[in-house]
């Protein structure tokens, strides 16, 4: 099946190309655009970008696998990013992470990003979110939460369920 990219995304990338002296410089921005639009970067997307920028797919794949903010699998509807850099770690971000994983039926000992089987929640550790004075902190999708505790995380979870109910 031919992979078709919607015009809005195509136009965005065409516009990006104009900003750089070389086409290959656009790779990273194009990946961001795809990640934003689809929520993940599929192999088809990698090949489409490679062709668009006259690169070999492997050079695009190198970037996708290098940066942790790109995902090759679809992410959950609710994406928890828990900081584990020094300040948050000292303030117990590991407990928050473990609590969240246990609540969602995920294995807190596994390495890397995890998504629940129903595809609703994704939990992962990230590096510093630049708010050490309010540690521990986390991102839920685009929203930032400070001084989180197990109670506030439980609240966040019920908020997610509520939001989901509203949308339906």
């Amino acid at each position, binding site marked *: 099946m031919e992979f078709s990219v919607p015009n809005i995304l195509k136009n965005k990338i065409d516009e990006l190309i104009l900003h750089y002296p070389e086409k290959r410089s656009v790779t990273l921005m194009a990946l961001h655009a795809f990640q934003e639009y689809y929520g993940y970067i599929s*192999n088809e997307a990698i090949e489409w970008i490679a062709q668009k920028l006259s690169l*070999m*797919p*492997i*050079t695009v*794949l*190198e970037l996708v*696998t*290098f940066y942790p903010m790109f995902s090759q699998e679809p992410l959950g509807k609710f994406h928890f990013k828990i900081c584990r850099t020094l300040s948050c770690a000292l303030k117990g971000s590991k407990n928050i992470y473990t609590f969240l994983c246990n609540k969602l039926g995920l294995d807190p000992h596994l390495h890397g990003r995890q998504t629940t089987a129903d595809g609703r929640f994704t939990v992962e550790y990230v590096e510093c979110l630049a708010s050490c004075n309010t540690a521990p902190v986390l991102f839920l999708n685009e929203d930032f939460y400070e001084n989180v505790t197990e109670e506030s995380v439980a609240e966040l979870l019920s908020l997610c369920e509520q939001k989901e109910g509203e949308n339906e």
Partner: protein
Amino acid sequence: MINKDQLQNKEEIPMIDIKIDGKAISIPKTRPHSVTGKQEPTTIIQACSIAGVDIPHFCYHPRLPVSGNCRMCLIEYGIPAIDRDRKPILNPDGTPVIRKMPRPAIACFFNDTATTEIYTNTEAVKQYRQAVLEFLLINHPLDCPICDQAGDCKLQEYVHQYGQETSRFVEDKVIKPKKRAISSKIILDNERCVLCTRCVRFTREIIGIPALGILNRGGLNQISNYPGSDFEHNYTLNAVDLCPVGALTSRDFRFRMRSWFLSETKSICPGCATGCNIIIHSRDKQIYRLKPRENDNVNSVWMCDYGRLNYKWVNAQNRLTHVFAENTDGTQVESDWLSTLKKIISVLEKTPPKTTAILVSSRLSTEEIYLISKLAKRLDAFTDSISHLGEGDSFLLNKDLTPNSKAIQIFKLASKTPGDRIAEISKNIDEGKIRNLLVFGEDPIKSGIAPGILGRLDLFVICDILVNPSSKEAQYLLPGASFAEKQGTFINAQGRVQRFGKAFSPIGDARPEYWILANILTKITQESWPLTPEGIFNKITATTPGFENMTWELLGTVGMDIVSTANTTE
């Protein structure tokens, strides 16, 4: 690595005096870039190479762009000291004071022209090497006993030479993919990889196809092809040669032989008219692999996969290993050289002029082709050869898939378009004018001689390496020697005469064609012909224009160009 002739020819390049480990040496200020050929300041590793000082390295390769990622080549260096007024500080005897710099530099990349002293064996350098090796071994599987690279492995050598005896590593090793078939010819083991990126740079810079890359980050770094697309190309196996460890292994060679059992013979690839310089790796009359050998005039350090894998026929099942002679009832029975040659000579001695045809393969050595030309002259024989054309490419593979068509032209055994006299020969056999047919290394029926008429010949000899469909028609079947079983020279498409060596004696009862020919010639010309390729070659140089300056010795390992092209262009 560094071509000495190249150094001497570039007289305009200024020389600089440096000291390596206390030994003074003069080195050129610039060297040509590995890929572009543009003059660039000489790096420390190049200077050490000229001085004959060995610097351990993984990622550096003289034919690839510098990457500087392995840190194995760290050295210390010193520059002239200056005082506060930026004036040189001098010793009492007037020589400048040299200060060793506090931090090391990577020899493969560092080319500061102020450097006057290089230290490669200080205590600090030893520690750097030991530390780099310890890091490399952290995630290395240490599976040398089952690794094909053992014996050829740079990591193994350097750890033995510079590493520490025991490991301090107590954590778990990172698990990476093993036994990945990245192409139909190559298996990749990511755990053995030291991430030098030689293979990545090779695909990008030399063959121009970025087929390989590095995925992931930090400890999880791994070389990979793009999933679903194989790394297919006619030059991929060079990446296996480049790999300093056992991460890339050739599927053809994998687990067939330990490298230390193999003996190495300098040879020339018989796969096409380019004449890439190669090394035959063999044991017990069996070729296990071919590897490229450096020759800047021909193949640099590369060779194509077609040529590299084109050796199986030497040890093939249908190899001709005994002399056969036709019995009175028409069946072929095993015979011996002495009586067979005697019978062939007795026919050839008495045959009138213009009654013989000789079909010559352009896979024979120059010496053999020369002897055939002498035989043809003595018998006033018709001669022809056959072209074997393939597709060729723009890098090394020539579209002429035989190694010595040039010699056929030089000794005028065929026209510009070999094979155009076959029809005439066939017609003359049919009409009974040609009574004798000698075939060296070709299949006469496949070449175009009508099959039904071969029975009319008085003498029909086939000398070949493999049994072919025409073989059973021959009165005498003589087993010849392959390129690995004899010495000789090939003349490549550019007119370069190159020597190939003998890796092992011919299989079974086979004999080199030059031996057969010299024996026949000695009898029928009443002259004595040398029985060695060296003797025959030196006879060629005495009589053939363009070869005047050559001798067997002077050809050496890299060959010589034919001087005048007058005899080849006509």
